[in-house]
């Protein structure tokens, strides 16, 4: 599904370049559940953003389902967001002016899902995450953990083929974190959804079938989870 060839990402710092990612090569097959680990500042979020097509590599090739992402235009990319990708942000990034319900509804509106189906899907998810009571609150009225749950729910709601999650459980109690991981595993196993997550927790990383260890912008090693 995903093929990365010599991906580089740098920021110009004066006349020098600070490399955040360097010579990243990776292959992720459809149906995989990959965890990315590494120390803070090692480039995990950056890599995930590139996989999510939010950011572009400064060099290298990125193939997605056999198509060259590095040649995509804006419109094609928008289609990708709508049809294939669900993103969970490290900083939640909910829309402040919208309620929980509306936040969940937005991607479905963009996907042109009919209103009745939108309703039932949102009701399902809210139920699954025990957030029915909170549906009319604004993000600012939720705790960090609750916001994160909404962020995860929003990524799932469009039923994407690929879920990219940047520390989806960073702010959750271990119990909640476990539930999220269970949801991911279930999606991965039963619906064949490909999942790439960034995490600091060994335990959560073990939910995946493979762990990529990142250090100083390079893939230091790969570890298969048995």
């Amino acid at each position: 599904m995903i093929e990365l060839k010599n991906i580089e990402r740098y920021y110009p710092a004066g006349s020098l370049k600070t490399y955040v990612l360097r010579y990243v090569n990776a292959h992720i097959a459809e149906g995989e559940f990959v965890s990315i680990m590494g120390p803070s500042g090692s480039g995990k979020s950056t890599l995930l953003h590139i996989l999510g097509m939010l950011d572009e590599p400064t060099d290298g090739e990125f193939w997605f389902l056999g198509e060259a992402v590095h040649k995509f235009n804006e419109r094609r990319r928008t289609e990708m967001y709508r049809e294939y990708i669900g993103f969970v942000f490290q900083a939640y990034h909910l829309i402040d002016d919208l309620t929980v319900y509306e936040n969940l509804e937005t991607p479905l509106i963009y996907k042109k899902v009919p209103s009745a189906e939108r309703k039932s899907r949102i009701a399902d998810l809210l139920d699954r995450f025990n957030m029915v009571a909170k549906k009319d609150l604004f993000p600012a009225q939720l705790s960090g953990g609750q916001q994160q749950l909404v962020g995860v729910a929003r990524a799932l709601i469009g039923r994407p083929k690929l879920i990219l999650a940047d520390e989806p459980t960073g702010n959750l109690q271990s119990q909640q974190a476990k539930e999220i991981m269970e949801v991911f595993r279930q999606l991965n196993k039963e619906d064949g959804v490909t999942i790439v997550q960034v995490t600091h927790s060994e335990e959560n990383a073990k939910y995946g079938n493979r762990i990529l260890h990142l250090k100083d912008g390079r893939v230091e090693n790969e570890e298969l989870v048995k």
Partner: protein
Amino acid sequence: MAIGVCVFIYAFANWTYSTDQFHRYKNEVFLVTFLANRDGTLQQYGQTPRPLGEMLRKDFAHIKKVCRVDDRNVVLKYEGNTFHERVRYTDPEFLEMFTFPLKWGTSNSLSDVNNIILSEKMSIKYFGEENPIGQNILMKFDKVKNKVFKITGVAKSFPRARTIGFDFLINFENLQVSDPDYDFQDWNSFVNATLIQVDNPSDLESIEQGMEKYRIIQNEAVKKDWAIAAFAFEPLATLHERSEDIRDDISRSSKDNYASIVFLSIIGIFMLALACFNYINIAIVSVAKRLKEIGIRKSIGATRKIVVVQFLSENIVITFFSLILGLGLGVSVIIPWFEQMWGFNMAFQLMDKNLWLYLSAILLLTGVASGLYPSLYISKFQSIEILKGSVKFGRKNPVTKLLLVFQLILACILITSAVMFTQNSIYLANRSWGYNQREALYISVSDHSDFEKLKVIVAQNPNVMSIAGSSHHLGKSNATTVLHMPDREYEADQLSVDAKYFETMGLHLAAGRVFNNQEGSDKQTVIVNELLVKNMAWSQPIGQQFEIDSSRFVVIGVVKDFHSYSFFIPINPTIFRVADKADFRFLSLKVRPGSTLETYKAIQTQWAVLFPDDPFQGGCQEDVWGNYYEEISIHGKFWRAVAFMALMLAILGLYGLMSLNVAGRVREFSIRKVLGAGLKNIAASITRQYLILFAAALIIGAPASYILLKFVLEYAYTYHMPINYSGVVMAVAILILVLLTTVSLQLRRVLKSNPVDGLKVE
């Protein structure tokens, strides 16, 4: 920019109010006027019976000086220069009462009947830059009577802000030289003006009481038609404001200027308001960026008052800078532009202390007005809320929205006015005068024998299709007469013409017939215009009768209404009478289409051969309205400029507000993009909140502009285009275009941005 406009308005108002204020005795000099009942309303007239001046001088000790003024047309000749001129006959006191400074010569020289004083303009016309004092100039009163005058004074060029001026001044006694029959004691005749000067304006009351006996003399002398009700005095200082309502007076009115001041002030206030609104809006939205600063200030103990004061003073500093910029703009661009457009000098000075007062007032007012609300709004927030970041600014603020709506409404009104005024000037340029002005020429002649001589020559010109003679002429002159009917008296304009006049000028006959082209026929008949028929409510105008000066007249024809003196002046009820040949003063011609100018030149040349001593006076009929068309095109220009500025302000406001808004929402737009929002979705979410405001503004603004402009056009123009919706539609279209452009600019910005940049956590 708005402040520049204000500076200009100040200059203009200042200029208008300064009218006549340079005269030393502005508070002691009065114009004698009388009130008379005409058509049921009391009218004030600026003329006075001839003997009144002398009587006032004799009878009242309080009256220090008296000056009679009368004007006559003469021909002046100095070496090769011969021109028709209008000369002012006055008592020698004229220059003592009106303290016009002299460039050369002495002002008391007028007491000698052989002396003449020129204006600077006339001095240059005849003598160039030379000092003409001591030169002799020949004045021809008519063909036979003439007199040599010695130039003893040249007045400095007059300020434009004056009501009364002169080209040439000669002693009043000369009236008897030009017209030996002139009777100074005739109560039945008038002089153009009588002015008095008193030491103490409070004496006026007793003088006014003493005037009663003149009223009796006067009313015994004249026919009942012209009986007067009372005398009244108009002070020089305010004459310019009043003269619009005084009939037949010699002073120039500044009423139009007052109306303009009101208009301009309204525009100025609008502009300032627009600018302030912009500022308030942008201040509120952009303050989000300074939230932290405010939060910290408050948390380290600043009270609300301190925060408000800080913001206000910052704001006044900003306003101060814009004031300087605006002043520069006003002085260097707007005032010169206006002066050049209307061709006069407002004598604007920067060193005027009132100007600075005025500017400081604007500074304080706008500074506080635009700064107060934002600062109060900002300071209201609790510092914990601010620091927690849970306060959301600007976007949801109803005041911001209200101001934007208001601004859009104003812009809508001003754009509509620009469009409408432009359309109107195009319309007026094409509007029919009611007769064929394009193929008509006129030449004024001094008497009947000249008329006949000229007619013979002119008739030989193959381009001339018709020749007419008349004592009055469309666009040039007319008499006023009173029609007596059994049940009422009615005042109408009168034109004395010959039988060929209607054909020559292309007047359209609506009913009946024109005069017979036979010597002596139709003497007791008149042709009237449609307006008169309408006002009289005659269902059958032909055959109607009335008396003029005790002799009976019958209506034999009706002509369609026509415009004599430009579209500014309402059509009057008019009658045509047969002119006595001896009274012919105008020869008018109809020429073959397209040959107007050529014929005009040919006749001018022939005239010079025929009457070498008499300057040619005549022209194309199309030019009799003078610079009327120029004037209305200036109106259009002016409104376009105003609308342009308003539009700029509105765009600036909308653009500023939107870009701040969008800037504040980059994160949101980035999230939306990642959630799969396409171009349309993002455009919708940018526009949505403005769309309602915009719709609201247009729903209020469009009808408001329509009604307002209808009112303005009706007020400012006697005749204007039929009012339609196209101006409003155009304004709405322009505003929608502005909205679309602004949105698409913002949209581009959002689309080009990289989502990751928008999602950075600060």
